């Protein structure tokens, strides 16, 4: 099974991945709308780089009470017409990469916009053991 993997040591914090994701999936640019979260900033404890991506843990599929999130052929898809906006998936995503929208949610659909844009291969789409 393939999933997004983040390599913090290569990340330059440019946010191009999140911009690409928000454009592809939400039709506008703002990293906050992206279905992955990358932060790279200075804190009291030094330079801090963190990445949260969908690791295909399938927790959202399991927890959705109405089967609005389904896995098919190694990809997730979301059926807005079934969604009741309970936000259980959003609250229970261990990586906090499901975006709550006015109606429904946004999940990583493995469109690879982020990996296509990453200039340093800090984001890769790799085989992971599940």
């Amino acid at each position, binding site marked *: 099974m393939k999933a997004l993997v983040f390599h913090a040591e290569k990340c330059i*914090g*440019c*946010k191009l991945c999140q911009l690409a994701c928000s*454009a592809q999936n939400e*039709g*506008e640019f*703002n990293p906050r709308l992206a279905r992955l979260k990358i932060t790279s900033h200075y804190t009291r404890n030094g*330079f801090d780089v963190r990445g949260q991506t969908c690791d295909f843990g399938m927790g959202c599929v399991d927890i959705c009470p109405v089967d609005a999130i389904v896995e098919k052929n190694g990809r997730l898809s979301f059926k807005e017409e079934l969604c009741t906006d309970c936000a259980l998936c959003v609250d229970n995503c261990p990586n906090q990469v499901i975006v709550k929208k006015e109606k429904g949610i946004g999940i990583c659909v493995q469109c690879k916009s982020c990996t*296509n*844009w990453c200039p340093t291969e800090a984001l890769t789409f790799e085989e992971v053991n599940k």
Partner: protein
Amino acid sequence: MAYTGKILRINLSTGKATTEPLNERWAHDYLGGKGLSIKYLFEELAPGIDPLSPDNKLVLMTGPTTGTIVPNSGKLAVAAKSPATGTILDCSIGGRFAPELKYAGYDAAIIEGKSKVPVYLVVEDDKVELRSAAKLWGKGAHETEYILQDILDDFVTMVIGPAGENLLPMACINSELYRQAGRGGIGAVMGSKNLKAVAVKGSGGVKIPNIRKFSATMNKIKREDTMTDVNMWAYSDGTPMIVDLCQTTGILPTRNFQEGTFEQYEQINSEAVKAVRKAKKACFACPLACGNYVQKGKATVEGPEYETLALCSSNCGISDLEAVIEFNRLCDDYGLDTISTGNAVAFAMEMTEKGLHDFGIRFGDIENYLKMPALMANREGVGADLALGVRTMAAKYGGTEFAMAVKGLEMPGYEPRGSWAMGLAYGTSDRGACHMRAWPVSVEAFGDIDPFTIESKAELVKGMQDNNATKFCVILCDFWALSNERIAEILSLVLDRTMTVEELARIGDRVYNVARLFNEREGFDRKDDYLPDRIFTEKLTTGATAGKLLPREEYEKMLTEYYRLRGWDDNGKITIAKKKELGL
């Protein structure tokens, strides 16, 4: 939507925030960033105002590509009348403040008046709030940003340090600790308004027609036009790469511009910086990541950039990289521009060594060197004198001929005696000695064009100034070497009109002229477009520039030719015909 169409205006005297429509005519003619902020200031500031009075305004201006995925589009223009020079002043700051302001719904924020007590401004979409900065005032820029990180959730901040509070002419504005709107005392303008920080967070998105296709086109541009061999020095090295180039060509300012080579340059060059590098860091939407996060001994900083290495290292006779890194961090934390600060320290060193005035510091004196940022920012001891900047120090104690500044702004790290066009660029820059208005060293000292002739240099400098002015309007980072054809192509996709290279050239020229007109209104003319005497009268003695100076009469000819190309008269005033042509 290249523009949100909305300007946020905050009056600190009344505490009131209002919004108003963006002036579309001006946005059409000046695009954004540098040009549009200068246009607003030209129209709104009365001539002759005191830059540190409530009459001055601080403009934070985005551009038509801000917030999008266009490579290198993350910069913000920060503009005001300069307290260092009395000229117009626009700085550009990286990091990610600009996109955040746009996501909050604004093309620009204009901050005017003066608060009675220290405050900071918090902008979250439509919510605009002034909060007491009583507990932040007096704190370092770094500590201030950390505290704001604790109080505010995921905001981007711009702050000043004690130098800004104490109104130093070399006070800068910081963001994300190590990104600066550095020059001309822009931080003092903020300090004069009792404004310690601005924090912004935006939930809105920027929409572009056919956004998926647009992204694909930009990704192609990123691969084929941004991440090229010509540009990748930024990632592999960053600006420290320039140390070796300047050393080889004899234009590395050394011991207050007494020489153009530094015998210990290998201790401060890119190899030395890379040896202590821990990470690379980019501004928003930049794949080039010129930033170097370094650590040596106990010293750590994002930097030092070339300008810091030149002015605070070789120019102060300091070769200990750890000391330079620590000096860099101190300057950032106290909110000091390293170019002007390095110059002030170097000037004090030469004055002391020559016995003209004892500032108690000599070239290479690391112990006292490291004390200077704090003394200057707090205006304590000798720091009170250094905090005046080299022009005023010279007026007080002498040494005018080697007070290395133009219009009162200290000189960056390129020796004009080894790059004559660079001299003209310093002389005719709209904000005093600046390397970002035009950077002809790239083709003169580092390229194939003879640096020791005035032949075709006026044309070279004008062209570079216009191109960079356009870039800073869009607003793109000047580190991306890209053609006007490419800028026109990108803008045509973003704006609802077709942009041409001809129109871009007109915009660059218009922006340079409105800046000149602002300065002309303040009394500036030819007499102010000269370099310090050292450049005209003293020969360099080492390296590739040994025996070289920039003869005054050659400079005069170059300047006159430059005015002619600009459509200005021999006194450097814009002719009526030129004003008409540009609709000024």
